[in-house]
């Protein structure tokens, strides 16, 4: 039988999916045990007990100086910035993407500029943002917005212009104005794509967030990682990286289920 025709059953698929995770865990444990056997004060791959103690200290013990639970305080600070960034970017992209997608005049006005701006490396703008907007929250949120909005706009514009011309003409014969075509024909059909697009931009959004927090902040997941880096505190960095990853995955799943719930019609054709 050809390899392309061998399909795993549900159980097999689950086991196969878990296999790389298990391999990673085993590799870590083995590496850690080997290094610690050689040098008990090795910091690079801490043992599970060290990690657990560190997680307990970070997540379930109040900080001695501030009285906060560090992990939760950092998470709240970072997620607030991320939510503002993603929210502003999505709203801007929706308005501009729709305008450019529906009106040829707006497309002529915006498309070249957005294409140009989307090529600016956002991290290169970070010093400018810090100088102009100060070291507070604004500049960090601005970096996320600048980083992901142009791509969202271009994606929405492409989705809107890719709608069949027949559909737009049909709406015109149903007495729709330009506004009503945007509101009742184009907007509902680009919304699922906006959510998918946002899902793809969660990774870059975290990248910009952590970059901004690494340089100047007093709380946040990125701030903590870069703070303890000086002490080679891998027992803090590893749990934080895992936690950030988990947050991103959960955000992705939440957006995906939101899309399924809000736009059931988009699932029918899949």
């Amino acid at each position: 039988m050809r390899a392309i025709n061998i399909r795993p059953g549900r159980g097999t698929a689950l086991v196969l999916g878990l296999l790389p995770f298990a391999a990673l865990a085993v590799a870590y444990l083995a590496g850690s045990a080997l290094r610690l056997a050689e040098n008990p004060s090795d910091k690079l791959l801490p043992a599970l007990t060290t990690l657990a103690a560190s997680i307990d200290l970070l997540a379930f013990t109040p900080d001695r100086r501030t009285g906060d639970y560090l992990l939760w305080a950092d998470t709240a600070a970072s997620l607030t910035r991320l939510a503002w960034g993603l929210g502003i970017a999505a709203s801007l992209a929706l308005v501009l993407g729709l305008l450019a997608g529906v009106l040829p005049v707006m497309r002529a006005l915006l498309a070249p500029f957005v294409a140009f701006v989307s090529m600016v490396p956002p991290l290169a703008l970070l010093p400018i943002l810090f100088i102009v907007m100060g070291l507070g929250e604004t500049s960090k949120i601005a970096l996320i917005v600048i980083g992901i909005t142009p791509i969202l706009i271009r994606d929405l514009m492409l989705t809107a212009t890719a709608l069949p011309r027949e559909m737009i003409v049909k709406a015109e014969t149903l007495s729709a104005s330009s506004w009503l075509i945007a509101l009742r024909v184009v907007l509902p059909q680009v919304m699922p794509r906006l959510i998918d697009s946002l899902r793809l931009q969660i990774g870059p959004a975290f990248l910009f967030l952590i970059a901004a927090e690494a340089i100047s902040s007093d709380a946040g997941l990125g701030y903590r990682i870069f703070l303890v880096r000086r002490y080679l505190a891998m027992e803090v960095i590893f749990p934080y990286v895992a936690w950030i990853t988990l947050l991103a995955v959960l955000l992705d799943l939440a957006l995906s289920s939101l899309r399924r719930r809000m736009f059931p019609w988009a699932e029918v054709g899949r």
Partner: protein
Amino acid sequence: MTALSISHLWKEYGDQIVLEDVSIDIGPRSFVALVGPSGCGKTTFLRLLLGQETPSRGRILIDGQPLPPEPGPDRGVVYQRYSVFPHLTVLGNVMLGPEMRASRFLGRRFGAARRALADEARAMLAEVGLAGSEQKYPAQLSGGMQQRLALAQALMMRPRVLLLDEPFGALDPGIRADIHALMRRLWNEVPMTVVMVTHDLREAFTLASRVVVFERPRDRPEERDRYGARLSRDIVIWPPRLAGRTTPYDTDRMPGRDDPTPDAAAAGTTRQAEGRTHASSPQP
């Protein structure tokens, strides 16, 4: 009085001439089928009637008035694909036009107005044989049902002219026969003029009251750009097929079908029975 009057119509794209000096008068309530080889400008002609494109020369009058330069609610359209909106339910699709016409800002109606409109939409859906599918999305319907939905959606606007661009081209023969019966009945009952592009001659002669042939008189490869298509034949069906009446040759039973379904089932509604009694009664 003519519904559509087209005189000396030319359509050029840059150097390429697509339609050349096309003149035709289309009477009210007629059913005109446009046929011809592929790439001869039938669809371009239909787009000109729709207002989706503007003629290079010549003019189009609708009920004596110049055609508006963009599509509008007086001309309905059904395409072979993409005629219905995938994000709306069947009922939502049919209600969309009247909703947008009545509510210019939100494009939605609420309360009693909405309920009245929904009832009207349900009646229209029953008319085209889609009763019971109101809450489905178009992607859950078969191709034939999607085209029925597209017809219902267009007819809700009570267009003076209905333009059909190979609407039944992608359907298999059995389904096509059913929808032909529906199309004929709608044309008989709804006061509208129908212009249909088709490449199926049999379909043209089954449905239309008049068959118009587009052809390029000069079709050698080196001539193709500089000479467009003209009307080469204009065939009025004999005996005349008039909206609301039948000729002895009209039958909804498709000859050659192995299992002719009963007429009522063919049209997909129970109203067929009334339609036939009316049609077979002697004309004044």
